[in-house]
């Protein structure tokens, strides 16, 4: 059976293991797409600046070295600027942003060293100079095959620099994780008994429903709320007459469970 995630475990001398989720080909390509759009924007800016300079510089009657700038020199400078953007974009961003580019940041990816430490100028330079080999004609044909065959999803540049690309852990609390207030009067006396026996996995199912219900279609949302409530009624196995909606009933259970957990 396929594993849900590719992982890299780094063992410290104290026998403490740090586990990282490795980024796959898809998310890396998506990040590369974002970076490509940004690089094109830079390249477009260079082209516009050069075109404007060629058009208006002679008319300004400038003196000194600026006046000596010929058309050829301007084009040479533009080519140099393009090369800097093409190679330097990844190199500078990864070295200065601890292994991230705007695209990687957008996708939640980061380049780290194989020992878990952040990458520096040397690693960034090696992996990005060798990008030319992986990239070959712009569509990463070599990179795709090497990543496919690699145990840690590394391309040639990663192997040479001793780096891996990982998925960053999301630190933020989900925005919709709101607190539900336990009611003063319970709609059903058996609820407290049920909540006292509720296992964490069961709580998680009910909680997940409340967190995700806004994404669901109305019909499926009602159906699921009904199904979950019926399962709870079945467990309580007594009179199950309630005068609130199924969703409010589930909210009540969650509120009581969380209140009990806080008290413990």
């Amino acid at each position, binding site marked *: 059976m396929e594993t849900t995630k590719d992982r890299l475990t780094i063992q410290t001398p104290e026998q403490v293991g740090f586990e990282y989720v490795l980024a796959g080909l*898809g998310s890396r390509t998506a990040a590369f797409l974002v970076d490509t759009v940004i690089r094109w924007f830079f390249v477009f800016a260079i082209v516009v600046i050069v075109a404007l300079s060629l058009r208006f510089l002679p008319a300004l009657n400038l003196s000194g070295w600026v006046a000596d700038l010929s058309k050829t020199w301007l084009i040479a400078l533009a080519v140099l600027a393009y090369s800097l953007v093409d190679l330097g974009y990844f190199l500078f961003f990864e070295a200065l942003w601890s292994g991230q580019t705007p695209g990687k940041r957008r996708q939640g990816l980061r380049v780290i060293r194989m020992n878990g430490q952040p990458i520096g100028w040397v690693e960034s330079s090696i992996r990005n100079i060798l990008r030319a080999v992986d990239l070959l004609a712009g569509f990463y044909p070599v990179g795709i095959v090497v990543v496919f065959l690699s145990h840690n999803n590394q391309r040639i540049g990663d192997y040479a620099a001793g780096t891996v690309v990982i998925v960053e852990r999301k630190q933020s609390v989900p925005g919709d994780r709101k607190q539900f207030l336990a009611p003063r009067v319970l709609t059903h006396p058996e609820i407290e008994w049920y909540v006292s026996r509720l296992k964490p996995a069961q709580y998680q199912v009910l909680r997940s429903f409340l967190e995700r219900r806004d*994404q669901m279609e109305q019909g499926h949302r009602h159906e699921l709320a009904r199904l979950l409530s019926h399962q709870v009624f079945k467990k309580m196995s007594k009179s199950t007459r309630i005068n609130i909606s199924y969703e409010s009933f589930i909210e009540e259970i969650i509120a009581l469970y969380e209140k009990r957990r806080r008290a413990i």
Partner: protein
Amino acid sequence: MENDTPLGTEKKFIVRLVGLKPGASRETLVQALQRLFKGKTAEEIGKALERLPLVLSRSVTEDKARQIKLFLEAQGAILKITYSASAIIAPPKERPRPEIAPAKQMPQAGESAPAGVERRAKPRVHTGIQVKPMGVGEILDRSFRLLRHYFWLFFIIIFIPQAVFFVVNLGLQFFVSGGIRQDVSGSMLAGFGISGVLAFILFLVVQFWAQGALIHAVSETYLGHSTSIKASYGAMRNRLGRLIGTMILWSILVFGIPALFAIGAAVAVPSLAMMGLGGLFTGIIVVVVVILAIWIFTTLFLNWILADKVVVLEEIGWMKALRRSKELMKGRTEPGFWKSIKTKASLIILVGIIIGIGIHFLFQLPGVLLGIVFPAGILITTIQGILNSASASLATVYAAIAMILFYYDIRVRKEGFDLKMMAEKL
């Protein structure tokens, strides 16, 4: 076992096969089941395994149930044995229904569950598999992992139509170029033409069959079950006609409607020019029509992009499949432009295309180099053809897997089928 019953009593048990253990081989289990059900063929058992849970016996003694459990669990089966309220002794009692009277959430007038909530095939998910909402990055990475893990399964499924096309094409080329006969008459050429058309139809049928088989194989492996090339193609046998019909309808509508606009513009522009409305006015009309045609194409393409998955996994076809695909693709499940369903689908397709181009490039390059270095001949043509077929298969398989996972992700988000499954075990 859920109930302990003393031996020798008349208490009976129901034995159900509810799933396969991670990594279990379906073939081994089929063989094991054949030993239990001697009258059944492997094909019949294989078919029955596609519709789990499967009741193996409704009334066995505890001893027998234990034996079956030990035997089949060793072959990788997951069994559920429940106590049967002895049908021999007394008729089953009807379970008392709980009195449930929710005040606010009774179905309102005019508010009904979306069409086919009950009708839809319920996906069977392996207990060891985690199905949850995923972001675009997670879908793409999961697709990559699936492809890597089941590479040969997916590759061969998608390579078969390419191989058929290649062999037929090579045969025709060989024949026409005089490899067999030099004196090709007019009637023979007509024969080649008809053969070519028949070969194309054959290729289309095999291509759709492979498309369906891939959807089945990816779905099975994603949900934690094992499958094979034969089982995947076999599962498509009774859905093939529906899939071909739906996909032809899909192609006619997606490509035909924008094409009608283009034809309309092609007819209108000369007419307008003859009426003296040339220049800027005609230019504006052309631009508007082109933009409109692109917009219509994109909208229809994205609305109906899940139609093939719907045909295979939900067993509905034709316009119903297109409507169901549109229903899944409409609306948004998360706030923000980048997280809208259609944007996600576009991004997945774009990434798939880029990876596909990369793979195509890598596989085409040796063929091109061979063509430059060596003189053209049957061997070089054959090698180039094999490389072309392989690159065409590899280039499409990744995006296809990602779109199947995307289909499941929408169902997880909009229909909460993972929660429905977990709810049943609550």
